């Protein structure tokens, strides 16, 4: 009993320490984004008070840059990529577990290789390919890359969940005369909701935060993403910390919002009542 308690306590201490470590820098960024320039450098660890409080960073960001465009771009890219990854991922997971066809095993292996090979290795080839295809400096190029990047993991995770759906449900739907596509969209997909939410969270975070591909593939202000846009405040000689911190603080919000939305779906037991 006592030992168990000590173990629980130990686990919690470690988790709390880790949480502080993870939240600390974020808290610093958000805190300092509301402070005047002198206060940021004078007392970086102090929270803003009446004398140091300033919204100068936010005003500058909104007036002097294309932040709204950057935000819109990031949102479009992230949401469209996420949608495609989830749609194709779930469909592929269903097909690979449900149907046996020539080359299905080879295809499954090919797709899982994608988990192990980092997509950045192909950067040069990707830039060449996009240029040839005339997609250089477009959001489409980024969306295509992120879909390719996110698919392998989502297929892998969703396949596991598809296997847990009772086979009788699919058989019952077939006997009922439900067409195969409808079985997927109206019987299987709704039951995959918790898994899809998990994969959604997994997928959007690296896309939203990615700096590399926007950096090498976009050149105009109209296609920059928020992570890339922030870089314009980081100069070689002077860095506008107010603006950088303000832009970064705002960049956190959408991801948090999406996470909150999806975490509601992260509840198990959706199949309760299907089978005994």
């Amino acid at each position, binding site marked *: 009993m006592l030992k168990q308690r000590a173990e629980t306590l130990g686990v919690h201490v470690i988790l709390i320490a880790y949480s502080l470590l993870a939240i600390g820098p974020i808290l610093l960024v958000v805190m300092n984004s509301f402070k005047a320039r002198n206060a940021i450098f004078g007392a970086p660890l102090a929270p803003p008070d009446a004398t140091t409080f300033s919204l100068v960073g936010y005003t500058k960001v909104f007036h002097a840059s294309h932040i709204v465009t950057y935000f819109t771009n990031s949102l479009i890219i992230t949401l469209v990529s996420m949608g495609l990854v989830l749609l194709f991922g779930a469909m592929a997971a269903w097909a690979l577990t449900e149907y046996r066809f020539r080359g299905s095993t080879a295809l499954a292996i090919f797709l899982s290789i994608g988990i192990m090979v980092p997509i950045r290795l192909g950067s040069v080839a990707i830039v060449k390919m996009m240029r040839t295809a005339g997609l250089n400096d477009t959001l489409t190029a980024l969306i295509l890359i992120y879909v390719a990047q996110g698919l392998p993991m989502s297929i892998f995770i969703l396949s596991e969940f598809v296997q847990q759906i*009772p086979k*009788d*449900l699919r*058989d*019952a*739907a*077939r*006997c*009922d*005369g*439900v*067409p195969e596509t*409808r079985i997927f969209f*109206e*019987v299987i997909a*709704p*039951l995959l909701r918790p898994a899809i939410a998990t994969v959604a969270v997994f997928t959007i975070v690296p896309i939203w935060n990615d700096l590399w591909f926007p950096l090498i593939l976009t050149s105009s202000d109209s296609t920059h993403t928020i992570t890339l846009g922030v870089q314009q405040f980081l100069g070689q000689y002077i860095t506008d910390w107010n603006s950088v911190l303000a832009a970064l603080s705002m960049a956190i919000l959408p991801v948090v919002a999406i996470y909150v939305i999806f975490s509601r779906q992260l509840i198990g037991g*959706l*199949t*309760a*009542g*299907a*089978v*005994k």
Partner: protein
Amino acid sequence: MASLSIDALNKSYGETKVLIDIDLAIDQGEFVVLVGPSGCGKSTLLRMIAGLDAPTSGDIVIAGRKVNALAPAERRIAMVFQSYALYPHMDVRKNMTFGLKFTGVPAAERDKRVAEAARMLRLEPLLARYPRDLSGGQRQRVAIGRAIVREPDVFLFDEPLSNLDAALRVSTRVEIARLHRLLKATIVYVTHDQIEAMTLADRIVVMNQGRIEQIGKPLDLYYEPANLFVAGFIGSPAMNFFDVKVSRIEGGSALVDGPCVAPLTVPAGSLAQGDSATIGVRPEHLTIGGAGSLATTGQVELVERLGEASFAHVRRADDKLIVAEVRGRDTPAAGDVISLAAPAQDVHVFDAAGRRLVTAESQ
């Protein structure tokens, strides 16, 4: 006209033969139960009738149409699964109408059918509920309702009562029998429970290791089992068997003799002198201390009391256990040495291959 017929059906997975030369014809409105131990192929046969598995060879004909190449939905069948297989994210009404949407049943007709099925199965108060809020028996009724609204030519039931508790199993069994009378539907019903088979079936198909052992009316199987397997499978507790040898053939009779059983004259049939044979007698036909042509003795090891009858487990001198049914309150006690006897007409004789000898007397 046969509502469902199966001709020379075979199914193998690689080298493993799951079903071997299955022939079966089921009449319109007949309730046929496929029964057998687990792994005998009865569920596979049902899934092939449904179109969920493809046969390796052979034909399946439903209502005069060869359906081998047809999808489950085109076969005009409806299946009820052991696990109910209700759509968890749809309420009861939606569960029943979901499939109808795709088979071109107009909305008004759908509502009419659901209302009718709900009335029959007393599901009206549950129509707006979700499967997770239903009890096991209610879920099974919804699954049956989903089958009824399809108005199929053939109903397929795959062990529908296995997940229910004992009391519910009995009441749902009665419900299914009532529905069959009401709908006059052709039903193929798979179970491993011989009581379900005996109580529900017009005809029982006993299966073992991928083959049909015998097809017949419940009481015919009980009184005239075709072979040792059926004799041992139908009836509870199982029939007692004695290994014997034919010591003499005289006229139409054979004298058989074996360990722990008094020499006994049986109709000779195809037996020859020196053949080994098996004689069988059901527990309910053995009487303690009575006179009969089959006689044996042993020590009572255990008495199971059921109320209307008790089962005495008797250890014979050759260490084999036989079971005798004792009616009434006067049961033997453990440790008693008793003698048991059965009249000739209740003794079954099986040849060395396990086939029951058909004699003038036994018919």
